[in-house]
């Protein structure tokens, strides 16, 4: 029987006990600081926080989901899940990884709920089916709704992982037969961080957790509850293929000559202009690529009700209601409308000049080649 120590070691103490030097510790702090985009003074703040705080208990629930969020989380490469994050938080309940099953698993969750009442972070992966008294998702004989109520009561904050927990995702697509419901519609009076995406990027998930445990507070959220750090920019505005859009150069059909040249995917259905996510900047799997870079349009998996936002391969301008002039600051659909206009007018009038410019540059390059 191992009793609970009276003093939980801080990150710094733990690292020292594991044989890491002060220098290693500061390197780790700089890495996190750099990741969060902090100035040098901010790195000192990270170091300070990590020396003082203890491992934050985390309960991670699974409801109507496909486990892609858990899978994405373990893909994070900075911070490194195996060496740092899984040691820095105490992941006391997660059906995907925990050793215990059955009532021993439930006992672990209840122990955390009692010992750390008001202190633990509740992560929720999946939506909650509310039709038929919740019989469409039961765990340990309890409905998802019953489990969520119980676990949310003592949570310090809730993180809604992925589009299932944030907006119901695929099971909430029409006709939503199980009445799949996102977390914020079921839990009131608790801070909720929404981290949408199907799944969210692994480094974004780790980054949200690091933010909470490092600074001891929630990251700044936008008006719908998403961390601004990762969801304040449109994929379209951070896309490296944006210049082709501006120049009016588009893929007409998959695998055509323009696709091989990496032109803009707008005409084959890309929803980048209406999607707020970090794909264009952080990219996926330690910056390896993102959907557009690999030739497929974004289909807006971090946007609300994206499964019902029209067929994946239909060009946005063809949706009913688009083609009107609009304020580009407005979110999602309206911004898409502005984009549609962009093609019609902006591209033709202004950007043919840019196309000419690009063309000229290519010729210049060829001339230079000849000279060599």
């Amino acid at each position: 029987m191992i009793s609970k120590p009276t003093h939980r070691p801080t990150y710094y103490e733990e690292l020292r006990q594991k044989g890491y030097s002060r220098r290693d510790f500061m390197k780790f702090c700089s890495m996190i600081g750099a990741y969060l985009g902090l100035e040098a003074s901010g790195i000192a703040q990270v170091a300070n926080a990590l020396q003082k705080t203890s491992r934050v208990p985390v309960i991670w629930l699974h409801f109507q989901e496909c486990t892609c969020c858990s899978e994405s989380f373990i893909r994070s490469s900075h911070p490194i899940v195996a060496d740092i994050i899984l040691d820095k938080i105490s992941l006391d309940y997660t059906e995907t990884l925990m050793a215990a099953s059955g009532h021993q698993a439930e006992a672990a969750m209840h122990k955390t709920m009692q010992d750390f009442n008001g202190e633990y972070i509740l992560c929720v992966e999946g939506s909650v089916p509310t039709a038929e008294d919740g019989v469409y998702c039961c765990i340990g004989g309890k409905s998802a709704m019953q489990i969520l109520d119980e676990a949310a009561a003592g949570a310090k904050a809730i993180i809604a992982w992925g589009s299932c927990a944030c907006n119901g995702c695929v099971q909430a697509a029409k006709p939503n037969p199980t009445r799949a419901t996102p977390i914020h519609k079921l839990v009131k009076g608790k801070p909720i961080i929404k981290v949408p995406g199907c799944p969210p990027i692994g480094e974004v998930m780790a980054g949200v957790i690091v933010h909470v445990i490092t600074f001891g507070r929630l990251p700044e959220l936008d008006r719908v509850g998403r961390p601004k750090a990762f969801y304040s920019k449109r994929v379209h505005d951070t896309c490296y293929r944006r210049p082709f859009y501006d120049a009016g150069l588009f893929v007409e059909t998959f695998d055509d000559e323009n696709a091989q040249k990496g032109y803009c995917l707008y005409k084959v259905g890309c929803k980048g202009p209406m999607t707020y996510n970090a794909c264009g900047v952080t990219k996926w799997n330690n910056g390896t690529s993102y959907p557009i870079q690999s030739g497929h349009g974004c289909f807006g998996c971090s946007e609300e009700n994206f499964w019902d936002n029209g067929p994946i391969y239909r060009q946005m301008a063809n949706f009913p209601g688009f083609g009107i002039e609009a304020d580009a600051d407005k979110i999602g659909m309206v911004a898409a409308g502005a984009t549609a206009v962009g093609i019609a007018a902006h591209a033709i009038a202004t950007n043919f000049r840019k196309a000419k410019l690009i063309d000229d540059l290519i010729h210049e390059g060829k001339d230079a080649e000849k000279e060599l």
Partner: protein
Amino acid sequence: MAERIVVDPVTRIEGHLRIEAEIKDGKISEAYSSGTMVRLLEEILKGRDPRDAWAFVGRVCGVCTTVHSLASCRAVEDALGIVIPPNAELVRNIMYCTQYMHDHVVHFYHLHALDWVDVVSALKADPKKTSEIAQSISNWPKSSPGYFSDLQKRLTTFVESGQLGIFANGYWGHPAYKLPPEVNLIGVAHYLEALEWQKEIVKVHTIFGGKNPHPNYLVGGMACAIGLDDVSGINAERLAYVEQLLKNAKDFINQVYIPDLLAVAPYYLDWGAIGGGLGSYMSYGDLPTNGYNDPSSFKFPSGVILNKDIANVQDVDLRNDTEVQEFIKRSWYEYDGGEDAGLHPWAGESRVKYTGPKPPYEHLNVNEKYSYLKTPRWKGNAVEVGPLARVLIGYARGREDFKAVVDSTLAKLNVPVGALFSTLGRTAARGLESILVADWALEFYDSLILNLKNGDTRMAEMEKFNPAKWEKTAKGVGHTEAPRGALAHWIVIEDTKIKNYQLVVPTTWNASPRDPNGNMSAYEAALKDTPIADPEQPVEILRTVHSFDPCLACAVHVYDEDGKHVSRVKVL
């Protein structure tokens, strides 16, 4: 005197699975497997664009990501008569192999190992001796005494903190754990290394499909255009990246996964006679080397073995409506044709009707309907699907590559062929096919390079992508061998929309409830007669259930005859 055991949630799986079992004389006398969550994606797909289906059904599972998207694209391509270009087939094959390597390694270390490896025992290991053992089984470089000593210190600190996180309340110290402390320490070391490694191999999906989990597919081929002379396309840098990842993965499988499997197995040879179950196996086959429409070219051959008769491998026809059928007698659904009807998926129905107890509940009524999984049958037979089925069918079809890995492993462990029909055999088969898949991945890579070298850069066949060119009605079936077993999607298209869409997935074959004749599916059959040393800590149930690599999640509760919890298991 029978005791009722309930396992719910079964953890270290995907999804929500519940096992109820009766124990008599220290063995399981009856087992009942129940899926307790449903999303009804089939209903959601009706009326949608068939070209979008791969994205919807991809979300069936984020652990076996890619497999449903692949089956879906093939189903639509089959319906529309599209033949994809060779490069697209090769990229799909490489992504497929990537998924296998990732999934099997993660299953072995993160979902299954803790049934065999006692984390707490590793604290008592002698690092020097651990190093000697590690170096005797593999040339993997991370094996010095200092490496194991540092790890042990770190583990000790972790355990002494009292916050055991994911290791809390495990069955540590249970007499069924047989490994010496040193082998346990190797297991823990590689658990952590595999967690690091797994995020690398998936980058193959990211390069070709833009992200992982849930990379993008495309009806007609793949969207990742070849652009050898462009920074945006699949060029030499991207291809070299893929090759490096595949080579590193092969090293990890051959130098870490397989040596560990062979080091652990000798301590658990009794599990070569437990958990066999049905003795009937099915594989649809996969990994085309001459196009999807030529099944004779598949690396994984297809077939059915009934009642362990490996001399007689039968053929499977997914279009024949008397072969694959789904039943709902014991499932929470209703059919127009009544309770005993069996429907071929093209005529399948998914009308849910829950008749179980109102939550919170303690037991399901296992004498009536007790699961959201339907019960599929092949010509009326219950069959097991998955790695063991594939390896046995490859072996029975006389394929030299399968025979080589199977025979050499049986010889190393000094066990007869019969030991394959077991929990241990299932776990071993997963490793054996990983060896083959790691080699095949590089063969497919070489073929892709050769094609590109010869000037073929086509990646998608878009001629029939436009719905205006489709027939008024069409139906198709797309099949694959997912890591967990035979998977197929059936689609009916009418007026360019999905009229019916049915998926019959591996875990449905394995984890389904009884059929109208009362016959068990694979989980229930495999659990029957499994010895249970301590009903409060039924690690034996987890071993057999996990050996299938379930793709739904549940929990385990132990009840006495009156349905009350027997005494609580003490906390470590």
